[in-house]
Structures are given as C-alpha cells and as structure tokens.
C-alpha cells in the first residue's frame, strides 16, 4: 500500500512551467524515438512535444503544420526539396561596361552588391537547378491517396518548393556611377550556361524574368506587361510549377501573378532543360537571395499552395509581344562602340539634348517626354517608349551624329543630383 501511494504521489512536472518543458525537449531530448514515447505519456507531454517541435520548426523554416494524414506527402516532398534545392548563386566577379570596370561583391553567394560603372548588365545563376520532382510530390493531388509512411516527424515545415525570394534592400554598399539606364533587378529562370554579363535574363531564348525597371515579363526575348516596377525594399518571390509549366511570382509576401509557359512560345522549345534560378543585376542597391534557409516572406498554407497551383494564369499570351531582340543586338553594339576612351565623370558637357531638333520621336504620355530629363536616353531607346525599332534607331543615330559633329563623345546620361537625369554629348578622352 505504501509503495503504491509513493508511486502515484504528485506529478513532479506539475510544478514546472511549460516553457521549461519545451526547453528540455528542444535542447536536451530531440531523439525521435524518445519524443514519440513522451507524446504517449500524458496530454501535457503530448502538447509540449508537439509545440516544441512546432517552435523549433518555425524558427527554422517559417510556417509549420502538425503532421496529419492529409499532408503526409508533403513531408516526403519537403525533405526532398530541402536536400536538393540550390544553396547559393554563382557570379562573375568583375567585367566592364563603357570601358570601365564593375565589380560584383558577395561573401556568401546570397547577398550581392555592385561597385563601379552601372549600365551594363550581368546575371547571377544558382548552383543547382530546381528539381521538378519536389514540385510534383508537393502538388501530387489528391494527397489522400498516399499511404501513411514510417515518418517520425511530428511537424513539417510548410514551404513552397521550387521557390526563391530576392530582396532589393535599400543599402548602398559601394560607390557606383550610372552611365545609362535605370536600376533594374530581373528575377526568373534560365539555363545553366546563360551569359553572365551584357544581357539580362529574359532577353535570350530559354530564359524568363520579371524586370524591375519597367515591370515587364521578358520570356525568350519577348516582353509583355506583367506587374509594377520594383523598388528598394521589395521582396520578390519566384516559384516554379514545372508539372503544369507555370511560373508564379509574389511581391512582399503576396501572390502577384502567374506566367504560363505552355502558352505561345514554350520555354523549353521541346527540350528538357533544368530550370536554374537567375537574377539579372544592374542596381546600386544590395540584393539578397533566399532559397529557404531563412523563412520566406510568402508564408502560404497548404490550401493556398494548392489554390496557387490551380489558379488560372493571369498572364497568358506572348503572341503579341513586341520583339526586343534587335534592341539587344543594337545595345550590345553601342556598348562596344563607345567603350574605348570613354570619359569619366565629372563631364565637360559639350551639349545637352534638350531641343526637338535632335530628339524626333514622341513618347506616349506615360513614359515622359524625350525632351524632359525624365525620359532617359537609354530608357527611351530601349524599352520605356513603345516606339518602333526604326524610330528608336533614328533617334540614336541623330544623337550619335550630333555628338560626332561636335567632336564630342556620347551620347551619355548622368544624374543631375536631384533625382533627375540629363543626357548629351561630352568631351572625349581618357581621364
């Protein structure tokens, strides 16, 4: 009788606060079998174990769900995803545009910032492609068809597979000088050997990206309106559903559109190429890439993800997209032409383009007047205006001709220091 009473006496754990029990489980037990047994001791321990795992899981991954039959297949998918996803970006450390060097700095392959001359383009590419299988598992509906596995995880991190986020920070970490164009970060997918410089993803075949300077999607060299322009502080998510050939985007944690690759031009052109996450960079701000080592801003529930997979694409056609390939070829040619002996700031301005004599095309109201400081030389030529290629070419030639006539170099655009830009001819020569 005595033995019996002493065995039952009081529950020693009653006096311990729940946080302490969490701590013991998280820091000192963590063996799957031990935790399993603890969940079968009593309700309190069961809740502690499940919640400990939840907080552990969420600190590591973001949203976590309790394992149930419904989502058991996610477990397989996510474990697969975690071990197969890209870990960092690969990049070219330096290159030149306009005859001057730029440097792309990164310590971890995930945070990048540029130094030197901006205006040329460069692309960083993930070390591994996204793997189609992880997406297929996660979206392998109906999920209830799968059998209960021998999994011993109580919780699993619910995170979108084949998804990455790019944050455009508001940090400027190094000195940059813009020679032309505007800040542009382009986020998307391409193939492994996509050129690392002088082009943006989306401009060439088998590449796709959302371009932050004009908000357009560029796919296989064609562009179409898609979303808004991207600004410092934005976090853009880009995910791949290669089962249904969809690429979906999020901005600051909210879904913002889907690109259907199967419509019009196909991404693969009939070939099976793995999708490598790529980011095109021409910006003075630091950018950060997250493949899931930190919680994503987009924190979907299971049903969100399923809905997202089923959502009809809001961006469907490339059939009427304006060709931009000529513009790229042209742009590369201009790079080559003016790269030698290109002067360094401060410029000795010979003439600024302010008269209608030189600029002859009329831009639509929404992109600004080419005579104004806000319609950049580069931007109005390349992509801001909807003018035809011939018109753009004509403006470019007039400007170049004018500069030559003056015995000057250019055309070039520079900042007026008050947020605006001016363009014109400058005196040539090395500094």
């Amino acid at each position: 009788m005595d033995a019996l009473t002493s065995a039952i006496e009081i529950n020693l754990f009653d006096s311990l606060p729940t946080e302490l029990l969490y701590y013991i489980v998280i820091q000192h037990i963590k063996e799957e079998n031990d935790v399993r047994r603890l969940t079968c001791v009593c309700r309190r321990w069961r809740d502690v174990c499940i919640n400990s795992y939840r907080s552990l899981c969420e600190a590591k991954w973001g949203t976590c769900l309790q394992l149930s039959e419904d989502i058991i297949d996610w477990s397989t998918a996510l474990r697969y995803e975690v071990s197969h996803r890209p870990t960092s970006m690969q990049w070219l450390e330096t290159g030149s545009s306009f005859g001057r060097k730029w440097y792309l700095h990164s310590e971890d392959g995930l945070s990048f910032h540029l130094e030197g001359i901006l205006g040329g383009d460069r692309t960083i590419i993930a070390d591994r492609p996204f793997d189609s299988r992880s997406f297929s598992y996660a979206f392998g509906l109906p999920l209830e068809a799968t059998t209960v596995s021998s999994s011993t995880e109580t919780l699993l991190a619910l995170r979108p597979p084949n998804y990455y986020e790019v944050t455009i920070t508001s940090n400027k970490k190094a000195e940059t000088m813009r020679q032309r164009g505007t800040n542009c970060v382009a986020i998307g997918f391409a193939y492994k050997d996509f050129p690392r410089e002088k082009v943006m993803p989306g401009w060439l075949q088998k590449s796709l990206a959302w371009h932050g300077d004009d908000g357009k999607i560029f796919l296989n060299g064609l562009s179409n309106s898609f979303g808004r322009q991207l600004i410092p502080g934005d976090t853009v998510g880009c995910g791949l559903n290669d089962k249904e050939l969809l690429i979906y985007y999020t901005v600051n944690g909210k879904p913002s559109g889907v690109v259907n690759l199967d419509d019009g031009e196909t991404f693969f052109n009939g070939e099976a190429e793995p999708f490598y996450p790529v980011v095109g960079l021409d910006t003075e701000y630091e950018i950060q890439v997250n493949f899931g080592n930190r919680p994503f801003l987009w924190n979907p529930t299971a049903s969100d993800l399923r809905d997202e997979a089923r959502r009809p694409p809001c961006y469907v056609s490339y059939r009427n997209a304006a060709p931009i390939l000529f513009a790229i070829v042209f742009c590369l040619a201009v790079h080559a032409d003016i790269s030698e002996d290109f002067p360094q700031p401060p410029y000795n301005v010979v003439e600024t383009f302010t008269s209608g004599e030189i600029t002859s095309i009329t831009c639509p109201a929404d992109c600004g007047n080419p005579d104004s400081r806000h319609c950049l030389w580069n931007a109005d030529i390349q992509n801001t205006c909807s003018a035809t290629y011939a018109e753009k070419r004509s403006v470019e030639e007039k400007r170049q001709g004018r500069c030559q006539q003056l015995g000057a170099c250019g055309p070039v655009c520079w900042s007026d220091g008050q947020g605006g830009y001016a363009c014109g001819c400058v005196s040539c020569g090395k500094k």
Partner: protein
Amino acid sequence: MASESISVTTSDDQTIQLSRKHAQMSQTINSMLEDSVGADQEAIPLPNVSSEVLKKVIDWCTHHENDPAPVEKVKKLNKKREYKAKNSTISDEWDKNFVNAELRVIVDILLAANYLDVKGLFELMCKHIANELKGKTPDQIRERFGIQDDLTEEDKAAMRKAWGATKNDS
C-alpha cells in the same frame, strides 16, 4: 566598498550568507546587486527558493566557482547545432553525484536555477531530467514521475497513426 558576503532571505524565512562571488553566479541576484549599488545592504528576499534548495545551489556554485564563464561566441559558431540535441552525458563526477538525488529535489533545484538564472546549474538539471526521460516506455515514465495517464484511447490511436507507431509503444 562592497562587502564580501551577501545575505538573502529564503521562502522559509531563513537568512543565509553567501559569498559575493557565488551570489554573482546568479544573474538574478547579480542584477539586484547592481541595481542597489550604494544602498544599504539589506538581505535580498528570494521568495521562490527554500533554504534547503538554496544550500544545494550554493554547493554547486562552490564546486563550479572557477569554471570559465559561458562565452557567447562559441554559441554563434555552433549555430547550426542549436537544433541538435546537446551532448547528453554528464561528464563531471561531482555533478553526477550531485544529481543523484530524489526527483522532487531535482525539480526544485531546476526551478531555483531557472529563477536565480544560474546557467550552468540550469543546464545540468535539464540534462539530468532529459536523461531520465530517454529510453523509457511511456509506462515507465509515468511510474517514475508519478504521472496520471489522461490520454483517451482515441488520443493514443491518433498518436500511433501520426507516428506510424511500432509495437513497443503503448
């Protein structure tokens, strides 16, 4: 000039003297001392700690008074390991002896270490309790710690399903 010994009053109204060095191993007492610099040294009330338990804590502090202070840097380097279980073996012979006590006492020391914020002692007690929980069946754990089984058959069936339980588990 700060005095070399500190008085504290325990929950059972006993006044106990401890050296400043030992007192400062408790972050809680340490911050109380810092707050009351220059004030008259009155006994510090510790309403959550009994004299029996406090003596145990002082014993531990005496044995460990020359341990190096925990360094934050080490933690940073081992950040990845945060999610792994800590080393579960208690290597110090003296500590092994120290934890060889009734579980009721262990739990009380853990609570006191938590309240007084004595990091090393707190970790030791957690480790010991974790070791007591490891490798035992739910029945053994309930018996050892005097826990009532309040799970319904339904609850257990749900757990088994979620875990894909094996025959060994009750």
